[in-house]
């Protein structure tokens, strides 16, 4: 089994900052089965849940450049997934402005796994303690609304 490591190109960190353009940035990691997982591509695809040939080609070229040994292996499959995102690289968490009783927690893009536990806590604090998440997470920022007051919560 041995030690496993993650190879993360600097471009990947940049691609996590959001943006609408198509991005290909190499991440390579070995799974428990020994397969090598290569990522990642992001492209504005709407509801089309598929990888474009252009993105896969770019990913293959980036892999060949940085990890030439990997190109001797067989590709098993590629898989896409929807990464709901907000455009500014941050999720939406908080009361929906101008509407009481509604909390939104979405738009985590590729960070849902890492942020899931903390998001749950923030949602619970929002609902149960009527607290407001930090402004950069609140939905107001996407609606262009003035910093509106936090609507009354549950109970």
């Amino acid at each position, binding site marked *: 089994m041995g030690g496993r490591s993650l190879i993360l190109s600097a471009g990947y960190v940049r691609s996590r900052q959001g943006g609408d353009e198509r991005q290909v940035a190499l991440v390579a990691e070995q799974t428990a089965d020994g397969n090598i997982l290569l990522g990642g591509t992001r492209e504005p695809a709407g509801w089309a849940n598929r990888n474009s040939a252009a993105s896969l080609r770019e990913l293959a070229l980036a892999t060949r450049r940085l990890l030439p040994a990997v190109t001797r292996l067989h590709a098993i499959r590629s898989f896409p997934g929807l990464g709901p995102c907000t455009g500014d690289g941050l999720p939406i968490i908080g009361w929906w402005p101008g509407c009481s009783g509604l909390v939104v927690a979405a738009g985590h893009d590729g960070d849902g796994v890492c942020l899931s536990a903390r998001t749950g806590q923030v949602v*619970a604090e929002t609902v149960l303690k009527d607290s407001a998440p930090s402004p950069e997470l609140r939905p107001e920022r996407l609606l262009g609304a003035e910093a509106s007051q936090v609507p009354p919560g549950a109970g």
Partner: protein
Amino acid sequence: MSAGPEAIVIGGGLLGCASAAALAEGGARTLLVEREDLASGSSAPPNPRWGRRSSAGRSARRTFQVDPWQLTFAFARLARRRGATVRCGAEVVGLLREGEGILGVRLREGNVYAGAVVVAAGAWTAPLLEGAGLWAGAA
């Protein structure tokens, strides 16, 4: 007479299940509704051979990798253990809106009311908000 939920969470993915677990831990009577199965949208396992046979925690300790599918189920189990109700196959067809307030959700089989509705429906969040007249699509 059984009291209705205090909080309804829409979406049985990672974020919905994590939210339901935290709400239930905080003492809220919580109902999670998922239209299909848990982790069937963005939290679905991209690679079926990823971390099989191990729990999310065990898998993470050994490899520092977390399988989103297993993590979703772990949150759902936690939510249930803390008293939340998790219902799959329960599709929200609309938010119950009255004026400037959301009162609950409309399921196919009827309405459910709660003090707070948490939309954690991933990519399907925007359509739900649009349906309630709260969002007019991306600017």
